[in-house]
């Protein structure tokens, strides 16, 4: 009887459905869990934390944001009452030496949320938590106590304007002068290499050099003037920390301060606006403090640009190769072997491609280019070192199998009758290929490209040795001729995650940044894919009546 029942169950195939469905559900759950984790950890990062004052007795106080709470592990005495401890971000690295502090809960005598506690964001040393004491203009006190906070808020916009102006002068204008001076220097060097050391050409160049030098001197003067305007300073008080009693004082130049907030005093709307400002800073600003603060704009830019260059390189390469394999090559053992090889190429570890990129692109092609085109720069390499072009080329090699396979599949799916229809109208094979086959295979090409982009955007290992750096001084695209600087090193979100999360001096403080950056990377890949899928579906709609599926 029992056997009979089992037999029916097996015959019906229901267990198999449960099994397959279960597998799908498990995978979906894992993916959803991962995305949820990244979302929560990543998006929560910017929300302002309340500042709590923990009284530890004996006059010892800690002011900071509560980050985590956990049970104190107590393996020796399991039946002992469960104790908890909390992790507090106390900031003030310059005073205490570390940002985070574990406190056992039974040490805490009392907690309160002081309304006038401020959170200071500054150029260096991470957050400062404390109380505003006094604002001074030079040596002259301007505001103290309760007015000081308002005064700081009033002064900050002007301070920021001056800081930005100095920064733009130091970076852009000085950069520009450096750039042109360097150009002149190289021209002189080239002339020297050609044996010309005197004459009108040299004189003209020397003169140009002098004029740039004069501009540089003017500029330094201007910067000094601006710096002279930065006279304000703000002093704060903060508890002396968990180890000492009393208070400590800290004075900073106003120019050092980015923003001052009273998180315990913020209304919901203010919190939201704080949040949005932080998010905007994250995507639009340059990184600070070895990438743990500020934004990731250069990394976003580098990632997107690298993927774009890679797409531009990989599409023609892969499509042409696939066309040759499927349309022109004589189908036989040779072609089959090539096809298998191409398929296997997709499984080669990416670092291998990176090594190839270094060996072939950088050391061979790059060094060759330098010798041929930029001899005056040597021994400083131009293309003979990692750069966005070589990184993109390496990634194109990595992803070209994907494009080839997708295109080939598309070509194979085009019925021979379609080609015959074109040939029968008097088209040559080439005309047929270009006018009928290529448009028909376009959706497949784009599918391949989508896969290639997704792979390329997430790839880090080969990039680390072919051109990605922790901090790039300039973007690979800017206002100086030739505008696109393919030889430059660049920043990349994937590498940024690794760098911030595991290489930075202050891993604890940077950890939320890892999630945020991951979220951003995911978002960018999704955006790139949506763009490509959108184009592909439009093409599909154009070509077929069948409703396009993703």
């Amino acid at each position, binding site marked *: 009887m029992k056997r009979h029942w089992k037999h029916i169950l097996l015959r019906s195939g229901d267990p198999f459905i449960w099994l397959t469905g279960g597998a799908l559900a498990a995978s979906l759950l894992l993916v959803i869990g991962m995305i949820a984790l990244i979302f929560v950890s990543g998006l929560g990062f910017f929300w302002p934390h309340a500042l709590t004052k923990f009284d530890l007795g004996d006059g010892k106080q800690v002011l900071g944001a509560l980050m985590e709470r956990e049970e104190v592990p107590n393996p020796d005495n399991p039946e002992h009452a469960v104790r908890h401890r909390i992790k507090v971000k106390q900031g003030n690295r310059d005073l205490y030496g570390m940002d985070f502090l574990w406190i056992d809960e039974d040490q805490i005598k009392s907690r309160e949320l002081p309304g006038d506690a401020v959170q200071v964001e500054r150029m260096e040393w991470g957050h400062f938590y404390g109380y505003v004491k006094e604002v001074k203009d030079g040596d002259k006190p301007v505001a103290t106590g309760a007015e000081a906070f308002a005064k700081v808020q009033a002064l900050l916009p002007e301070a920021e304007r001056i800081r930005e102006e100095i920064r733009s002068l130091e970076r852009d204008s000085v950069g520009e002068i450096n750039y042109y001076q360097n150009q002149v220097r190289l021209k002189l060097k080239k002339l020297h290499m050609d044996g010309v050391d005197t004459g009108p050409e040299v004189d003209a160049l020397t003169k140009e050099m002098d004029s740039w030098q004069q501009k540089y001197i003017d500029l330094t003067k201007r910067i000094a003037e601006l710096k002279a305007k930065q006279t304000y300073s703000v002093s704060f008080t903060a508890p002396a920390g968990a180890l000492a009693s009393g208070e400590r004082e800290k004075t900073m130049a106003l120019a050092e301060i980015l923003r001052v907030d009273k998180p315990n005093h913020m209304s919901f709307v203010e919190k939201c606006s704080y949040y949005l400002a932080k998010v905007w800073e994250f995507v639009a600003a340059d990184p600070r403090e070895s990438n743990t603060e500020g934004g990731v704009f250069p990394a976003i830019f580098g990632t997107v640009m690298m993927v774009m260059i890679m797409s531009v390189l990989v599409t023609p390469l892969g499509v042409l190769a696939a066309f040759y394999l499927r349309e022109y090559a004589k189908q036989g053992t040779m072609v089959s072997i090539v096809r298998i090889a191409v398929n296997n190429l997709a499984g080669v570890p990416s670092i291998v491609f990176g090594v190839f990129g270094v060996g072939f692109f950088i050391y061979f092609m790059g060094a060759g280019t330098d010798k041929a085109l930029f001899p005056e720069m040597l021994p400083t390499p131009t293309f003979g070192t990692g750069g966005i072009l070589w990184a993109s080329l390496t990634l194109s090699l990595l992803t070209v199998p994907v494009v080839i396979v997708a295109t080939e599949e598309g070509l194979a799916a085009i*019925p021979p*009758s*379609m080609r*015959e*229809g*074109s*040939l*029968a*109208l*008097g*088209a*040559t094979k080439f*005309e047929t290929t270009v*006018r*009928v086959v290529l*448009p*028909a295979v376009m959706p497949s090409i784009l599918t391949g490209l989508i896969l290639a982009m997704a792979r390329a955007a997430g790839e880090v290992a080969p990039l680390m040795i072919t051109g990605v750096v922790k901090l790039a001084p300039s973007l690979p695209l800017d206002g100086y001729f030739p505008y696109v600087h393919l030889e430059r090193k660049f920043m990349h979100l994937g590498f940024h995650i690794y760098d911030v999360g595991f290489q930075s001096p202050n891993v604890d403080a940077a950890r939320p940044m890892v999630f945020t950056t991951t979220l951003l990377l995911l978002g960018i890949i999704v955006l790139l894919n949506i763009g490509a899928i959108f184009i592909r579906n439009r093409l599909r*709609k*154009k*070509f*077929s*009546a*069948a409703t396009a599926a993703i």
Partner: protein
Amino acid sequence: MSSPASTDTDRTDLEVPGRSTEKTATGHSPMRIAVQDKAQDADAAPEVPMVEVQNVDLYYGQKKALKNVSLVYPQKRVTAMIGPSGCGKSTLLRCFNRMNDLVEGCRVEGSIKINGRDIYDPALDVTELRKNVGMVFQKPNPFPKSIFENIAYGPRLQGIKDKARLDEIVERSLKGAALWEEAKDRLNESALALSGGQQQRLCIARAVAVEPEVLLMDEPCSALDPISTGKVEDLIVELKERYTIIIVTHNMQQASRVSDYTAFMLLGDLIEYRDTTTLFSRPSDKRTEDYITGRFG
């Protein structure tokens, strides 16, 4: 193969059924249709040969798919090709626009002339030939483009870029294929959105757009429902005013409805070729009779 003299006479004053058949070396008559059969046709105009096939052998590698086939297709007539599956109808048809060139290992011997010109002459431009000899396939094969672009495809290949000219050609071709009324409001929609019958008429329009002289149709209705089939058949009858049509069909009724002449093939041999009425009413070969009465095939 065929002597130029005989062809010349054939072309000037040959009437279908051809009479000068005894001249060929093999004794196979290029036109086997008997004079007396044709005599029934009161308004029998002199037939002008369009496609002349003489002693054609065709090999797919070692396999001989056509065996010494000789026949002449008259101009502006519909000639049907019937015969059991695998007898070589498509193979013969695809010789006329040299689609067999695409098949590896395919070899053609003998002579095929269209309008007096040997189409296997090495000096001949195959694409020119194909512009002159249109083809409609068994399954409709529109390009994945708009209706307009499908029809403009051939003219564009010939270098016509002028939008007004193309518009005019598209309209004329669609009208010629009896599709204008159904398609005129959706010219920019995908051709794949049309029904099967419409697609097949679109393919006919596409072939007609390059103004060929000969139209080859390989079972053009086999994928269509009876109503669409009827429309295509009507169209074929209309088209023969202007084109020489050679149509392969498995449907005896269709052959008798649309064609003027019918050729029956069997295992690569041309068995019988005469005007359709006679072939279906009084076949002279036993095998033809067996086939059309459904005893085999």
